[in-house]
């Protein structure tokens, strides 16, 4: 997701003109590629690294998945699977890139063995990416249940009927398309990988030595943490300060999972600025009664954050249907908001959460900031209320307003998971003694902008929550929206969906108050039930 505005920002470790320095499998390398060059292209141009495949170059197939490891002071190196087709080489600065070649042990690893054993590789084109993701799953699974800021399991959503292991396997396979197998064999291989995890990891789940000793990973993983630490020290010294951030007309990239899809060919070499990785932009922090979400916080971090999960306990379920794990590791909350897609899933959720934006701008030699309610950001289709040079550093959420309410998010897309919504809808509601005390509704896909239903919500506050009240909300919403026909559905369909998604919020949040059968009747032409 992208931050289109011009900006510069202080970077703790910014790629310098001397290139991007990172660990590539077992070697320390310097990439001199133009800014914005995709990691996938970087790999495919090197004949010894063509095991990574290009399937779609838009993050939809997973054939290009690689591991990216980052140093975490407390837990060594944390590796995440990402789609290399949506990641600029610049972002590898100071990190560890592991490709399928880097996982090679000279003989099959347990992950590779299980795939072979179950016939889970047929044409083979999707296989390297899947091996990478299942290896990542193994590393993550061994680190045990989620801890705050921990190893990813926080976003684990168990679909009905799934065991924990099955949920882990499906989560790992979520961004991978295999057109040959039908996935049963892949699921089975994944389940058996989990059963075969090395024992004795004890208190030190990140101990790479043990993974290496048990024949899961090559030896260079043992020394990666130390080498990344030295690299960090080296790069910090060499880092060039950004002195003139506002002067350039460059585009700011915060994730890039949509911008690369839209304009992948044009981006490399256009002076793209990858948003710096300063800690404040990468973390979620509780400051007073506000949760501050830094501009670089990814979807996956949101799901893992204990603070956010306290506010929105079902976040893992919502995100499960939003993006694949590999994309969730890349897509940022702020990028999603700035991308201004009328159908942005996280955007619609954030609108219902009443999010505010901290907008910053470097002018007259000073860094100035203002707060902007998210719903005021959108003026028209992809038209934002931001001044030139102004950028969003944080997304802020009012904790007590959310804590005391319940939140629901619903979407319908052609494919249930990992598809762009036809219509999505979010709701934050507080009810006391049968009356609505607070309500925030938002919908996407039914207007040129993601729509915060301010008036509709306000009109319902104070009313008794009953059938008449819901009818009023539905009617008022229908009068507000203006869907159009497109490949995701006809305008009529979107209208009907919008209504039914809103009904779904209330059926699911208040099963005792609403009787499903009375809400299933078709909507008459003209939008009224």
């Amino acid at each position, binding site marked *: 997701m992208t931050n289109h505005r011009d900006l510069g920002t202080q970077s703790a470790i910014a790629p310098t003109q001397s290139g991007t320095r990172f660990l590539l499998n077992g070697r320390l390398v310097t990439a001199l590629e133009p800014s914005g060059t995709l990691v996938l292209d970087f790999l495919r141009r090197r*004949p010894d690294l*063509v*095991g990574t*495949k290009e*399937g*779609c170059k*838009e993050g*939809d197939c997973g*054939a290009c998945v690689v591991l990216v490891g980052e140093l975490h002071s407390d837990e060594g190196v944390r590796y995440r699977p990402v789609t290399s087709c949506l990641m600029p080489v610049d972002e590898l600065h100071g990190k560890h890139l592991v490709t*399928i070649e880097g996982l*090679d042990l000279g003989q*099959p690893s347990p992950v*590779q063995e299980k*795939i*072979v054993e179950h*016939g889970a*590789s*047929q*044409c*083979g*084109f999707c*296989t*390297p990416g899947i*091996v990478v993701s299942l290896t990542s799953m193994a590393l993550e699974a061994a680190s045990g249940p989620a801890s705050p800021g921990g190893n990813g399991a926080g976003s684990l959503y168990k679909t009905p*009927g799934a065991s924990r292991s*099955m949920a882990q396997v*499906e989560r790992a396979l*979520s961004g991978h*398309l295999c*057109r*040959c*197998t*039908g*996935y*049963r*064999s892949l*699921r089975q291989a994944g389940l058996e990988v989990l059963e075969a995890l090395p024992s004795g990891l004890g208190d030190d789940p990140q101990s790479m030595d043990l993974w290496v000793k048990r024949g899961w990973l090559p030896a260079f993983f043992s020394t990666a943490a130390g080498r990344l630490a030295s690299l960090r020290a080296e790069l910090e010294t060499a880092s060039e300060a950004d002195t003139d951030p506002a002067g350039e007309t460059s585009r700011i990239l915060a994730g890039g999972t949509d911008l690369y899809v839209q304009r992948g*060919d044009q981006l490399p070499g256009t002076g793209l600025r990858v948003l710096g990785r300063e800690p404040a932009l990468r973390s979620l922090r509780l400051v007073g009664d506000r949760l501050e979400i830094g501009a670089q916080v990814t979807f996956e971090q949101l799901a893992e954050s204990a603070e956010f999960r306290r506010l929105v306990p079902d976040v893992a379920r919502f995100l499960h249907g939003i993006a694949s794990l590999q994309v969730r590791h890349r897509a940022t909350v702020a990028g999603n908001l700035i991308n201004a897609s009328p159908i942005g899933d996280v955007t619609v959720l954030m609108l219902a959460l009443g999010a505010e934006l901290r907008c910053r701008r470097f002018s007259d030699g000073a860094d100035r900031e203002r707060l902007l309610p998210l719903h005021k950001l959108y003026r028209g289709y992809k038209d934002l209320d931001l001044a030139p040079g102004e950028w969003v550093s944080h997304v802020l959420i009012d904790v007590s307003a959310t804590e005391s309410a319940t939140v629901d998010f619903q979407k*319908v*897309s*052609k*494919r*249930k*998971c*990992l598809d*762009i919504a*036809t219509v999505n809808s979010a709701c934050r509601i507080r009810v006391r003694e049968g009356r609505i005390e607070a309500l925030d509704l938002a919908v996407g896909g039914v207007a040129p902008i993601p729509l915060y239903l301010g008036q509709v919500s306000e009109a319902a506050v104070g009313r008794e929550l009953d059938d008449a009240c819901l009818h009023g909300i539905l009617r008022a919403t229908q009068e507000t929206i203006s869907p159009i026909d497109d*490949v*995701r559905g*006809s305008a009529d*369909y979107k209208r009907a*969906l919008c209504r*039914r*998604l809103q009904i*779904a919020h209330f*059926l699911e949040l208040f099963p005792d108050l609403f009787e499903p*059968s009375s809400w*299933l009747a*078709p*909507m008459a032409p003209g939008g009224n039930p």
Partner: protein
Amino acid sequence: MKDHLDAERHTRGQTRYVDDDPPPSNMLHGVVVPSPVAHGRLIAVDTSRAKASPGVVAVLLAEHIPGENQIGPVIQDEPLLAEEELHFQGQPVALVLASTPEQARAAQGLVTLDFEELEPIVDPKVAFERGSLIAEPQRLSRGNVDEAWADCDEVVEGSCEIGGQEHVYLETQRARAYAEEGGVLRVCSSTQSPYAAQKAISKVLGRPFHEIEVDVRRLGGGFGGKEDQATAWACLAALGTQHTGRAVQLVLRRDEDMRWTGKRHPYRCEYRIGIRKDGKILAFDVRHYQNSGAATDLSLAVLGRTVFHSTASYGIPNVRIFAVCCRTHLPPMTAFRGFGGPQGMFVMESALTDAAEAVGLSRERVQEINLLAEGDRFPYGQVAEACHARRCWQQAMERFDVPRRRSEIDAWNRRNPRHKKGLAMMPVCFGISFTATFMNQASSLVHVYTDGSVSVSTGGVEMGQGLNTNIATVVSRALGIARSRLRVESTNTRRIANMSASAASATTLLNGNAALRAATSIRDRLLAEEAKRLEVDPDRLTLEDEIVHLDGRPTAKDWQSLVRDAYLARVSLSDHGFYATPKLYFDAEKGEGHPFAYHVYGTAVIEVSVDALLGTYDIEAVRIVHDLGRSLNPLVDLGQVEGGLAQGLGWMTLEDMRFDDQGRMLSGALATYKVPDVFFMPRDLEVEFLEGVPTEHGPFGSKAVGEPPLMYGIGAHFALRDALLAARPDGDWRYESPVTPEKALAFLCRPPSTEASPQLVPVEDATAQP
């Protein structure tokens, strides 16, 4: 060793596809400039700006083609590069050659086309009405439909609209051409049909076949999409190489591949069906209007298979089939797993469903009553032999406890207003062989080296279906040696000439038998030589576990010494095997013959649940009894069944191929065209193979497995119908595929049909043509 021969290398990222080989130092990259419109008159092409662009070496147009500008495989109606008319959006007009892919892409936008846009035809019925046909309609009949209506208690008519399907092979179309000594060309192509590519390149370049070598190591998926449609890209790479003398590589980007290449044919169909009160279907009259796209491609053969599979798994005494290829301005539609069979079967299942409803019987009951039985005659005259349709059905019913599942579902549906469940049975009967009889031939080349290692070449292409694994199994069994001694080579027109495409589920049948023959000949010669030495009758010798056995008991002679001795005795250690499927013929005039070696049978039980509020659904379980003959490699075969099913389910539900009324593709990216993912496919997936049913045709009793399982997916349509009707018993169901959530919600919201559904035709009026 039962696993897939390539699998370990795949998992280690060590298998190479066309563009994974290190490129020659001066290789050029080709990018195609496509027609921006579905129909137009090309006036001029200006390449001057593109030629001046950095890194560009050449921009080639139709006028640069030295031979014939023609790549149509059956009918000569497909130019390689557009000349005067633009027939579809994405039709190649120019080829830009540059030093890097980025330079070629940058120049692509600098080629300007001057054209006059013309009105496109996108609907097959419109094409039919305007006489825009690829060939004369195909007709087939059996019995007398017109007379049979009078014997029916109910006659129903209806229509179907069947969507297309994008292949989404994970590896997009690609080719790389190398210039060799004497101007000979070597082309590495991701094609299912090396011979088709060789023929077309030869024609386009005006060179004899033997100067064009086509080599295929493997495909990252094909599914029919590279049977004919890989040819254009191979030809363009070769044209670039011939023109520049340098290697040329052409790799389609995903969006290009999706927008420019052909897909499974969309169909519009009309039917009339007559049934007796007891559930016996007496007559079926069907008209298939195939949307063939802008060029013939393989459409005639695809249509032929639709005709042959129009009665699906049922024995119907009176049948009349009309089918026609309608030329439109969409990309030329092409082969896709099932090859027209699925469309034919979908219509039959729809008609049967209406017929069942008309006489008040359950769908399953009518299916069962009409299932093919041994000795039944297909509409094309062939008799159903070794017919396991009823056996598969019975086994599925019992093993998967269908009656109990049905009553549980009914009970669930009574209790739950919002979430409804549905079930459908889907029997499959699929004929094995190319419907063009002459294509049912294959050859192999087997070399045994003096160290005992073995090289095997066939005309079959490995595309993930496990062909190489099957070939290796066949040869190692025939020679009685370990699979590790074998190498299955790339598919190459120098080693194997004139091969048929790897298609029609018949690749192992044909190439496996050819390899078996070569291996058997070598083995017989080796044993004959050993028999001479031992002074025994050769029939007493066998080769097992790499040891020569005499009367079933091991001798001291092992494989390596057997080979070495034979070599010293000047016995040939190489052989060329040839196989042609026996007994096949079809008289198109009479509509009668024996077009298939045999049929594959099976039955699937599909369960779904729908959310009647949102129109969303889940496929909850699929359970299959499938007839494989005697499997060569159960792991490979299981993979084919499950993978075929996934594609069939996708085709019926979420794979929504959309063009606008100007013939522009709307679903030209994986963001807008969704295929099954891990969450879509049910966890509850069970496949049971029918036991003890070897066939005499396939190597070691094996049966073809590639295509038939796809058609189990058709059951998803009827399971969804079942569930949605539970939510809306008065609903107006339409046989339109795919049933996207949008269509499901439209059904839930649509007012009940004003006409009776299904549309009953008074029996006395039924003799008129539909």
